[in-house]
Structure formats: structure tokens, C-alpha cells
């Protein structure tokens, strides 16, 4: 339960990844999601990570992990090499966001992107009323030490996809581990999108 609460998006991603799919998890961290996908969805795939500690953690789980910076390109991978490319809580920390999304949709037949929703009411409250950059469990960083450089709301990402001709296959907004369907951009803490070219 506690693990689910920390990463409720993993539940949705796991549900959306078809059984036996080939997956690429970009920014796979310690490999928790990749290991779960292997276990529950019999996927085959690879994680990409830049940090030494995370690469080691993935190796210790017996996962295929490739050390590298996803922002310097996905040129290790061929076109449409994967059924699903996963970007869980990674996109907001990338600099060349649009270029990366393009690369992701080149190597993946589809992609699942999870994002912290900057439209959540507590974020709006902290910034709008408190006048401070929001800090929360999902966004635990101060403005000066955050790795996150490109925040968006659920609506922002929808508009981004629309403008770039990217198809949103489905989306979910999550709060406290549950899906929220009413006012998702206000009530969702985390957003999960499945997109394709």
C-alpha cells in the first residue's frame, strides 16, 4: 500500500501495458516498475538510467539496463523497436522535452507518459494564495534544487499533443492512489497519458 501510494502511476501503467509487450522504460530508476511489468505482464525489455546507483539496483534485480542520458538521444534503438515506451515521472525533468517525445514515439509504437500535475488545487493554492513555489509529497523539491525544469498541467499536455499532432489514446488522473474523473486537472496529483504518433 505504501509503495503504491508513493507511485500510484505504476498501477495504471501496469494495467495499460499489454501482456508480453516489449517495453523500454526511460528513466527507470531502481527498476521497480520494470520488474513489476516482467512479473505481472511478462514483458521483455530494457531500462535506461543515468545514475550509477540506479543502474546497479537494476542489475541486482537481474534487469536489462542501459546506462545513459536519454536527452542525448535514443540512437541505440531502431524505429518502432518497442510496443510501449514508458516515461514515468521523467519528462518534467528533461530540457528538450519536445525532441524527446518525438524520439520516444519513433522507437515506440506507443508511449505511456506519467507527469506530476501542476494544475492540482494544492499547487494552485500554494502559488496563487501562498505566493510560494509548491512543495509536496509529489513535488518534494525547493525551487533551487529541483531536477524538474518543465512542469505542465494535464490540460497543458493535452494541448501540447494536439498542437504537435500526437494522438492521446487514453489518459488518467490520480489522487491518493485513486483515479479521479471529475475535474481531473484540479483534483489529479499525477497524470498518466498513453500517446502515439
Amino acid at each position: 500500500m505504501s509503495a503504491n501510494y508513493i507511485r500510484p502511476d505504476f498501477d495504471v501503467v501496469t494495467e495499460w501495458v499489454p501482456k508480453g509487450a516489449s517495453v523500454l522504460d526511460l528513466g527507470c530508476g531502481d527498476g521497480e516498475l520494470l520488474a513489476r511489468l516482467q512479473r505481472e505482464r511478462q514483458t521483455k525489455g530494457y531500462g535506461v538510467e543515468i545514475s550509477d546507483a540506479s543502474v546497479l539496483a537494476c542489475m541486482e534485480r537481474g534487469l536489462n539496463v542501459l546506462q545513459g542520458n536519454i536527452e542525448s538521444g535514443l540512437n541505440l534503438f531502431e524505429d518502432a523497436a518497442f510496443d510501449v515506451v514508458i516515461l514515468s515521472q521523467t519528462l518534467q525533468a528533461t530540457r528538450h522535452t519536445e525532441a524527446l517525445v518525438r524520439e520516444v514515439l519513433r522507437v515506440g509504437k506507443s508511449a505511456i507518459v506519467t507527469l506530476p500535475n501542476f494544475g492540482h488545487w494544492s499547487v494552485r493554492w500554494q502559488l496563487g494564495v501562498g505566493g510560494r513555489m509548491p512543495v509536496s509529497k509529489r513535488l518534494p523539491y525547493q525551487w533551487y534544487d529541483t531536477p524538474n525544469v518543465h512542469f505542465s498541467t494535464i490540460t497543458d499536455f493535452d494541448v501540447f499533443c494536439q498542437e504537435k499532432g500526437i494522438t492521446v489514446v487514453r489518459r488518467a488522473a490520480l489522487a491518493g492512489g485513486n483515479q479521479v474523473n471529475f475535474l481531473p486537472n484540479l483534483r489529479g496529483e499525477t497524470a498518466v497519458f498513453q500517446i502515439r504518433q
Partner: protein
Amino acid sequence: MNIPSDSVGFVSPQKIAFETPLTFASGATLDRYDLTVETYGELNAARSNAVLVCHALSGHHHVAGFYKDAPDPSKSEGWWDNLIGPGRPLDTRKFFVIGLNNLGGCHGSTGPGTTNPTTGKPFGNDFPIVTVPDWVRAQTRLADHFGIDTFAAILGGSLGGMQAMQWSIDFPERVRNVLAIAAAPKLSAENIGFNEVARQAIRTDPDFHDGNFYAHNVVPKRGLRLSRMLGHLTYLSDDLMGEKFGRLLKGEDYQFGFDVEFEVESYLRYQGDKFAGYFDANTYLLMTRALDYFDPARAFDGNLAAAFAKSTAKFFIAAFTSDWRFSPARSKEIVRALLANKHDVSFAEIESVEGHDSFLMPIPQYHALLRSVFEGIKV
């Protein structure tokens, strides 16, 4: 001497005779040959725990442990001792580890310095040109000798990593894990260029006698020394050399001459002299040529992915940030070809300052990764 508790301890080599002829890629044949090997740990009943360690340019079978009879046993440790032993990343309580000296070597296996039975003289330049696939075929016979159908893992750094990869290409069913460290899928023009300079240094030494220096009771020391000095420069990184030597002078001030002025010169001369004292010049030529010829994609119209198509092993590919001889980009070429086949592969780019030699260093992240690979192998 005090032997660390996680060392394999005192070891001794064994020479294994092979009486079946071996035909090389060049068409040349050896009617018989010996391979000198060392083993550590015990082969289990299922013969499923064997690991082969392939050596690089100047390596040999003495991979781990110490020699009791060495002039100074405490200085006789194997060249990859820090990796292998009870409790070390390649744990000899779990694995049976084999190190060998390749054909053409100068540490006990049949090579250019060995007496050619048909002439009664050392082979010299008559010794067949060896290639990585030739070595691998000789190694399969070594596996047969021990009754090993399938290696749990084959690993090596640099030229050793090339042999490990070649196994997965030529004998995919005989290796479950391939660890290729600081390797490349083929040499670049620059790499070949360095090798050629080293070979020219040896071949133009008047004491080389076209490879038949044994008959003249001389050794082309000047050539060997130069080739090792050059080699050393390519194994190290600019940063490390800067850190280690900088512009440190041997004496108080400039002497305005061509004797050793700088520490780096002294170091290179020392390394060159040491090497020239024990290494066979013909072996050096053969080893560098084996490097030059290595190009598994060549038989597949240059398509490396096609070369790996039949491989079934799980791969661990690692490269070092300071290695400019076989840079991380070269390892990524291997990774890309493996990914194109959807093979199991992990890749690590390890921070280091020691250049190409990093693969021999006990860098904590590197050794932790190797440990995780070996711990994950079922035997």
C-alpha cells in the same frame, strides 16, 4: 607472506596437450599444441559453473592467486586477482574459473618461441597468424578437455572481451553470459595505426632478424621497449598522466639534454624495459594482428547485428569514461547490435581516470556491477 582471506591463495599452472590438428583462418595448421592454464574453484557435478577468463594483448593464464616459488611470492599475484577469489565479485566458492594463455602466446602455450617439431627450431615467423576465432576454437577444445558443454560465463577486457563476444557468435549454445569490458566491435584506423607503429618498432630492430632472433641468441629489446612505451601511452588517459606525473622533473632543474628529464619519461622507459625483459616479440606481433583482424561483422556484409543474430547469451557490456583507446562509443556499437536482436544486454559507462587499463582496477561501481552479474547467474 600474508595471503588475504579472499584470495585464491597459492596456485600453479598446468600444461594441457592437444594432439588433434588445428587449422587456422589463414589456412595454416598446427598438428599439435599445448595450452597452459590455471583453474580456481571446483567444477561442480553438473559442470554448469565454469567461467572462462580471456586475456588481452599481454596477458596470460595467471589470472589470480600467487606463486609460492616466485622470487618474491607477494609480488606474484595474477593480473586480475582483485576480481577473483572466495568472496570477490567472481566468487570461487560458486564458480570454477579457467584462465589460459592463448595460442601464439609466450607464457607456456604453443607460440613462436616453441620448438617446431618438424624443424627442431623455434617457430619464429613460421608460427601461424592467429585470429580471435582461431583462439575461440582452441578454447572450445579446452572446454571439451574439462567436460564443459556450456560456460556459465566468458569474460574479458579489451582483446579478451572480443574473444568472449566471438564465443557467442561462433558457439552460441556454449556460453550463457558474455561480459565484454572495454572492448570494441572492430579496430578503428587509428587503433590499427598504433599497432602498426608498435610492429614497425619491433620489425625494424636489427636484433629482430625477421622473427628468427632465437637462433642469434638476441632479443629485439629496443623494438619491444618502444612498442610497450607507445602501448602504455594509449592505455592511460591524459588526465591520469597529468595527475601522476604532470611535468615533474627527475632532477632539480632542466639538464638541457636528452636523458630522462621528466618523470613520465622515466616511467615509460621503466615499463618498456620491464616488458622487453620477458615478452616475446613475435607474440606481440601476433596479438596486435589478431586485434587488427577482429571484425565479426565482416562475414555479414558489415552488419554487426547480423553477426550476433544467433547469440543466446545474456550480455554485460561496460566501458570507461577515460578510455580513449576503446571509448564508450565503441561499446555502444556493440550494444546497438545486440538491441537490434532484442538480446538480453546491460550496459554501464563507468567513471574512471585510468584509461583503457581501468578494466583491471577495483573501481567500486565496476566491481559492484560485476558482482551483481555473477550473483545473478544460476549454476
